[in-house]
């Protein structure tokens, strides 16, 4: 076994260049099709906003002094952040696996941690870009207050990281596009729609309130919304703990999968 390391590529700067290149590639991948990956989810969220606010604005008031449209916007932003963070890492991996070009990454000296970080950061950035675009457009409709910007940033970052990580797991696990669609339609969609995007869980019967509290998406939406209004269904610190803990667990599972080469290297 050889121990001498004189290769310039082993220096600190060039060892960062590998994961940076993968991150750059992942960012360019979604930016090249921004109409589909950024514009489309922004338009979808705005359609939700127009329809729900038009129908429910005069009928529903969740928090005192907060119009329904204002209540709805943070939920829609967070829902889009989560869905797009998941979509970025999962679709990139499943496409690379089905097309076979994942081999170009597997042949490189990138470590499992570098692989994870590149896909994770790209997913976070796409989620945040979509969320920011919806926020900027929604400003035309409602003057949204900000009670605690740090909570907004923390939940946006942790939420997109959690779903980006979940997307990596789904992308590694799925072998076909229909398996990935099942992941999206039977797990991600129900969990986001039943997380309190459109309502407060206090408006639900007690049984469904308990069920909602088992949904990690609920804590992400509620905590994010707390950052805007200073009000929520549960304590934001408790939500932060749940979301942070869930991210940690999923990140450890993902790193273990990547290190073992599960479904990537036989």
């Amino acid at each position, binding site marked *: *076994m050889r121990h001498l390391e004189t290769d310039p590529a082993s220096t600190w700067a060039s060892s960062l260049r590998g994961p940076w290149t993968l991150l750059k590639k992942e960012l360019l991948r979604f930016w090249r099709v921004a109409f589909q990956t950024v514009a489309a989810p922004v338009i979808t969220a705005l359609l939700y906003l127009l329809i729900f606010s038009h129908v429910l604005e005069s009928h529903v008031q969740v928090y005192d002094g907060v119009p329904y449209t204002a209540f709805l916007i943070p939920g829609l932003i967070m829902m889009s952040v989560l869905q797009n963070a998941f979509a970025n890492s999962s679709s990139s991996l499943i496409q690379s696996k089905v*097309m076979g070009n994942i081999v170009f990454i597997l042949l490189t000296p990138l470590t499992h941690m570098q692989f994870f970080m590149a896909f994770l950061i790209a997913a976070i950035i796409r989620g945040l870009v979509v969320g920011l675009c919806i926020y900027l457009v929604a400003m035309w409709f409602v003057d949204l207050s900000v009670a605690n910007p740090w909570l907004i940033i923390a939940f946006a970052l942790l939420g997109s990281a959690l779903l980006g990580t979940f997307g990596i797991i789904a992308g590694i696990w799925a072998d076909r596009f229909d398996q990935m669609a099942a992941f999206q339609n039977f797990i991600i969609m129900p969990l986001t729609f039943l997380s309190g995007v459109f309502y407060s869980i206090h408006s639900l019967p007690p049984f469904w309130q308990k069920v909602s509290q088992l949904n990690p998406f609920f804590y992400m939406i509620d905590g994010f919304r707390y950052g805007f209004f200073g009000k929520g269904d549960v304590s934001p610190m408790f939500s932060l703990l749940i979301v942070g803990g869930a991210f940690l667990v999923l990140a450890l599972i993902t790193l273990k999968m990547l290190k073992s080469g599960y479904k990537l290297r036989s």
Partner: protein
Amino acid sequence: MSQPAIKISGVHKYFGTLHALKGIDLTIEPGEFFALLGPNGAGKSTLINILAGLIAPDSGNVSVMGFDAGSQYQQARQLLGVVPQELVFDPFFNVREMLRFQAGYFGRGRENDAWVDEILEGLGLADKANTNMRRLSGGMKRRALIAQALAHKPPVIVLDEPTAGVDVELRQMLWEFIKKLNRDGHTIILTTHYLEEAETLCSRVGMMKQGQIVALDSTANLLNKFSGKHLRLTLGDVVLPANIGELVRHVENGIYTFALDDMAQIEFVLSALRTANIKVLDMQLNEADLEDVFLSLVGNSGQSAARGTF
């Protein structure tokens, strides 16, 4: 003392109950142009994939220029460029972007651009550098695939059937470029179905059969071991006389290949056929080539071989 470019020791691999590699030992020295031959299912690609880190061996060790491919995979992969067998590409990017990305994964930046240009020029891709990968023809995609493996300028290059389905002109061009890399000091390991390529290009040959290396020698030595003439007779569907049966090396579609030690045996064979009233429809006399060596060693596995390929 210089390290071997590749050292494979006692490598076994199982896929379920299939024992795909049965204790492979192989050393390839720096600067060699080495061919790994064998019929489909012999284990060539499994061995290459283990070398590339895409498959983990069940036992045994693999090292690249002294670096263990398992425990020192980062250093080992830095030194290795692998051209995969499947024609895969990333449809989001153009050729130059893909090459820059590939070099970047290995820690190389803009200082590597001159080498990228050299590869593009050498492989006839210069005018396609800014073309999206999905717009390239099959041949161009194959060139881009080879270029990607070379992007980080690896000293050891593995080509897994790089000319499968490639036209003659492109094949010649690819080999000229690969030969130049070999002259410049790169170690080349090649698996191919084109035996003539291996015979012309490679200084040493390993032949695999059912997960084992059945022959490993210089190309010249292998040809010498199996020297002699080969008489190919088109006879049709006949039953050969017993006295010439032992000279038959290969039978395919009514064409019988006889291995002869000297010219006098030609008359012996023809006389036996005349006596048995068997008509000779066509006749060829050839020197032994790598295909004959291969057929002798892998036996029935190679009997479906077409001339020049298997």
